[in-house]
């Protein structure tokens, strides 16, 4: 029995508990936190290697035969998401341990609790259990966001909490409605039930499905549900904001999982009904995100809007409802998680050297390490704008390639390409103002901590790896997309699964 599947949930949980028990011993907390993140990284690589053979691995906590008990599922997609999370978490924590985890010493514990929720959401094959893990990640994110002082942080934090409480309520409604219609919670089984659903009841299931789409859309920050994101991310402390780069991806993941597994190819009348919604939503999200990025008055707000742009791009790829589109999105997901995380950390290093001006976009003091931070910012900006030679460019090419040259794809072409240009203009404005349009430097500005710099460089390094190893990575994402588009295989694997 492969208990390793459980490790991405249990390891951060035990770590978090340990860190709470060790309250007050800051340096020990930091070491353990980083150690655990490193171990998670190793475990997730190992899981990915297992999953890459294409076999779907199941684990039944409580040893109850599915669909009666809860099921954890390790397939290509979940293994990929776990690894992306582990990488991001490692660098965020590495940044935090360099003295960016104040006030108090609870930040690390909360980050590990967050990881429990995120990893659990990626692993579970049960819709209600997904709700539970969503709650874990949400409640930890509330704590992380409100952690520390500041009126703006409290205001945007409250906004975030309330919007997500609405999301949780809708989630609960959606899940109970699906249970009320089909009598099942297991995702594969739900997909099977959808295939056999009385067509007269299809609108009910579709309504439940749309409620779930709203919930996941809220998490993913798609239009018109993204309003909570810009301020919340901009107000969060740097390692938290970087860590949150994975949060929108949880929503994206849930959309992929639920609408390929439950409402996927086999779902008869309901097959693929979500894409019809998702396509215009994706395009609107892209446009709104771009406008936001252009309009931003602070660097962190700008990056937050770029997160929304990446969400739009990802959703567009998914909504194409093609293997190539899904594979492109999965690749872009890896890229955008890393680069957004890196940008939030970098913005923090920059604002620390600008005195009271912080990250306001405008003429300001010269940075103490203008050259070094400038180079990093330039690379990150090129990557995030989707310009060559970095992975964002490859991701966008893949997306356009998958969209093809049909009439309906023209809008996407225009938006994606104009989007790259808009991002480029926006970032060249903010970059040239922050790095070039400068007055004397702030006397007391501290030099960036070497470890924190390494964390940023590390994340950018990951972007390079994603760029240069695009071939093998795409090989994986294409196979993952293929696996997702064959929900029958998963169902079969579950039906053949026997508990002890």
């Amino acid at each position, binding site marked *: 029995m492969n208990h390793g599947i459980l490790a991405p949930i*249990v390891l951060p949980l035990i770590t*978090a508990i340990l860190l709470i028990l060790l309250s007050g011993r800051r340096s020990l907390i930091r070491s353990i936190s980083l150690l655990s993140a490193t171990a998670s990284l190793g475990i997730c690589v190992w899981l990915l290697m297992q999953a890459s053979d294409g076999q779907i691995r199941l684990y039944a906590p409580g040893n109850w035969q599915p669909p009666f008990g809860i099921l954890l599922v390790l397939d290509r997609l979940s293994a990929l998401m776990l690894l992306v999370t582990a990488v991001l978490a490692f660098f965020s924590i590495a940044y935090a341990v360099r003295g960016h985890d104040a006030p108090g010493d609870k930040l690390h514990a909360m980050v590990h609790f967050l990881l429990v929720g995120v990893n659990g959401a990626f692993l579970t094959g049960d819709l209600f259990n997904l709700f539970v893990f969503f709650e874990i990640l949400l409640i930890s994110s509330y704590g992380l966001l409100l952690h520390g002082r500041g009126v703006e942080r409290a205001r945007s934090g409250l906004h975030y909490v309330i919007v997500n409480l609405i999301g949780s309520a809708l989630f609960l409604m959606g899940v109970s409605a699906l249970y009320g219609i089909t*009598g099942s919670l297991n995702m594969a089984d739900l997909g099977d039930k959808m295939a056999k659903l009385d067509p007269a009841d299809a609108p009910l299931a579709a309504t439940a499905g749309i409620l779930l789409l709203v919930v996941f859309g809220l998490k993913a920050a798609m239009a018109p549900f993204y309003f909570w994101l810009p301020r919340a991310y901009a107000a969060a402390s740097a390692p938290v904001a970087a860590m949150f780069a994975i949060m929108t991806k949880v929503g994206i993941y849930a959309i992929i999982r639920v609408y390929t597994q439950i409402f996927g190819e086999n779902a008869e009348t309901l097959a693929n009904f979500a894409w019809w919604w998702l396509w215009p939503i994706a395009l609107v999200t892209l446009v709104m995100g771009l406008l936001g990025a252009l309009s931003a008055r602070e660097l962190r707000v700008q990056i937050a809007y770029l997160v929304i742009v990446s969400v739009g791009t990802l959703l567009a790829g998914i909504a194409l409802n093609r293997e190539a589109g899904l594979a492109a999105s999965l690749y872009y997901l890896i890229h955008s998680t890393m680069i957004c995380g890196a940008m939030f950390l970098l913005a923090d290093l920059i604002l620390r050297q600008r005195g009271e001006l912080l990250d306001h976009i405008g003429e300001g003091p010269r940075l103490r390490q203008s050259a070094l931070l400038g180079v990093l910012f330039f690379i990150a900006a090129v990557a995030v704008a989707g310009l060559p030679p970095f992975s964002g460019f490859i991701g966008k090419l893949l997306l356009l390639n998958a969209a093809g040259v049909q009439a309906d794809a023209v809008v996407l072409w225009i938006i994606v390409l104009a989007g790259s240009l808009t991002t480029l203009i926006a970032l060249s404005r903010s970059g040239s103002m922050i790095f070039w349009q400068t007055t004397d430097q702030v006397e007391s500005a501290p030099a960036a901590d070497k470890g924190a710099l390494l964390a940023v460089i590390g994340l950018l390094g990951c972007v390079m790896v994603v760029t240069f190893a695009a071939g093998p990575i795409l090989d994986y994402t294409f196979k993952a997309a293929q696996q997702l588009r064959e929900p029958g295989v998963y169902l079969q694997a579950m039906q053949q699964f026997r508990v002890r």
Partner: protein
Amino acid sequence: MEILLIIALPLLGAGLPLLTERFGRNICAISAALGPALSLILILQYIPALLQHQMFFLHQPWVPQLGLDFSLRLDGLGMIFALMILVIGLLVILYARYYISNKDSLGRLYALLQLFMMAMLGIVLADNLLLLVVFWELTSLMSFLLIGYWSHSTEARKGARMALAITGAGGLSLLAGALILGQIVGSYNLDMILNSSALIQSHGLYPVVLILILIGAFTKSAQFPFYFWLPHAMAAPTPASAYLHSATMVKAGVFLLARLYPALSGSDLWFYLVTFTGLTTLVFGAYNALFKHDLKGLLAYSTISHLGLITMLFGFSSDLATIAALFHIINHATFKASLFMAAGIIDHETGTRDMRRIFGLARFMPVTATVAMVSASAMAGVPLLNGFLSKEMFFSETLKLDQLGNFSYIFPLLATFAGIFAVAYSYRFIHDVFFNGEPNKDLPIYPPHEAPLYMILPMAVLGLLCLALGTMPNLLVSPLLHAAAYAVLGTDIPRYHLAIWHGFNLPLLMSFVALGGGLLLYYQRKGLFAFYERGYRVDQKVVFEKRIQRLVRLAQRCTDAVENGSLQRSVAVIITATLVMAAIEFWPLGNILGEIPLTPIDGISVIMASIMIVAAVVTVSSHHNRYAALLALSAVGLVVSLAFVRFSAPDLALTQISVEVVTIILLMLALFFLPQLTPYESSWRRAIRDMVLAGGAGIAVGLFTLAILTRPYDTGLADFFIANSVSGGGGTNVVNVILVDFRGFDTFGEITVLAIAGLGVFLVLQGLELSVPRTDRHGRQWTRDPYPIIITVLSRMFFPLALMVSVFIFLRGHNQPGGGFIAGLITAIALILQYICSGTDWVRQRLPVDYGRMSVVGILVAVFTGMGSWLFGYPFLTTTFTHLHLPLVGDIELASAMVFDIGVYVTVVGATLLMLSQLGNLAQTIDPQAETDPDFTSEESR
């Protein structure tokens, strides 16, 4: 592999000058030249083979799924461009060594130059169209940094941003064109594309592809109407201008025309688009160049004009015109780089580039003057210089066009017109600067003197090259040109002859008309200048910046209109969108009621429903008075728990009622710190909107639930739980068995949520200092006797009883209503009662527990219980149970689930009390005002 090195060496070398900068300028320059020099040596080795029309390839897969491969090819076309890039690059490196002053970083310039060089080499050597685009965009990015090198100057910043935006946009257009082209051909491999001319041009998307790709080429080569970034890019340091705007950046556009010539050219669309764009640019650039007073401005417009000439030649789609274009590319690079260097020297030695201020420099800097005269004459097309040769070819090609029928004469006519202006501005460059009187004494640097030898050297080399190419074309350039033409045109290269003398013919006449007319024009310049100045001139940079600013403001207006930070607004949007989306999906359901008949209405249900409705309405209508609203809300909660009882769910009822109590107490504690009244802020319109939304949401949820509940569902899951509760889970209380066993993993997650919530409250409130309100809203003092004796005594008596009840509830849980969760809540309530009645300090002294730790210990117990099953080879949280027979007590059932339930219990108690004690601590923070009131303070801290 060596082809790769040609590109890689400048890339690798880019870091060197940054490292060696501290060892002085010479070493810095030498280290910068290292990479390009090695690349040049490499490429020289290939030349003999290339002249034999061989081609060299390198293929390295990168993103096979996309067709983007790292494929390089070295052919004749790539060769002449690579030679220009490297030779002029090396000369620029030498030149920059003397040009850049000590206060600027030479190493940074060298690094950027080499990176740019790498990108340019990538363009000309790419064998994959997408790879070409990759390098193409890289040149835009690097040129942004080069133009913005003097970042303190606002001109440089704006010029850089503008160049990036225009060429970046062109690059994206090219990308779109390339992608579509690739989809048509089925490959991005250049060989495949170049051999698919018929397929491409017969495809319906050919016009789209062509226009997109041409936009890319035209933006890069500064063709009309995309030319305006180029003059503003002159804010770059002169070495960068000399490099970018003679031999490299702007040549990328015409390179692309040459590269894709076999695939795209020949159609009418190509002819009209390319020829007329080129022609317009040629005339427009030549005309404007004459009137620029800035030396570099003149050169910039002249560059625009010459690029127009080259573009136009490609448009002709004839073999000879193409050869002429290639030849002019080489010639333009040599004389223009030389002239930019001359302009830089003049700027360097006089401190200005304004031709209205500098005169008669020939006396002060004779060498520079001589070289500049040679190069400028080449630019004008004076015989014996290389510019003359290609210009003659151009003139003779314009005479061959017949596409416009009787109007074809406009080509030679306009070409001659542009030629006249070219002569005039070239002559102005010489005459204004080097002659035309004595230099003003008010020059920033006076007297000017000759530049250092090694600064002149690169310029002189290029000047000599103009002369050599002009006099001995067949010896020096023919083989190279032939190889390049072969790469573009394929096997059938027409016979042509590069010669200075072709006899008396029409092109020669045109040349002389241009020379004569140009001189004449120059001497009539005063009137012309006045005419030009009168014309309406806009500064494109200002216009562009204004447009961007307007765009930004528009974006700000849109964003602020949509997302104004109002929570109410975003909640309203969420609910509206959800309602609309759900309604659209729900609508096709014809009949809301399903086949299950509705249960008859009975009195109790009616009463309960009415109480709930009334309580809900009261909650809403009294929400301005927070305590009242809270009390009304608790009524809703209580009726819900009664409803659970009515529908035979005692577990749920117990849970609901204890949760209700804890929630209300915590809320009251929290509300204590807030104003008790919410001001009336919403307008009537807002209130109506909210009512509609809330009502709509309520009705929608009601209908949806009704529709689901009146339809049968598959009860397989429920049946399984009931059937297996005793045999598999060892308990008769199915609800509890579901919680701790069937779906124990959910409960495991939920207690984690609870513990985190407790910690979250701790994090939010930790260190927070709030002023404690001393009066209620009517101004009455809160009682000074916080712990009334009767309640204190009673609560202490209740405590052990409550604990016993909770133990009882816990133990019976597996078989009868109860369980760890409810028991935990009961214990928590009992403790809360002690806190309320006896004060925080009193409890803390007697119960020194850290609730934060306690709550996570509960999870730890659950985790270890779960992992315990690993020891027996079962998955996480697998339960087991056994029956134990004890004397006297009787049969006792022991289930591992009970240990798990203990974890639940501990977490619930810990987390609940953590929240409570944090709220309680808040009340302990000292109110600064209260210090004046010793009684109050002492009461509080008692």
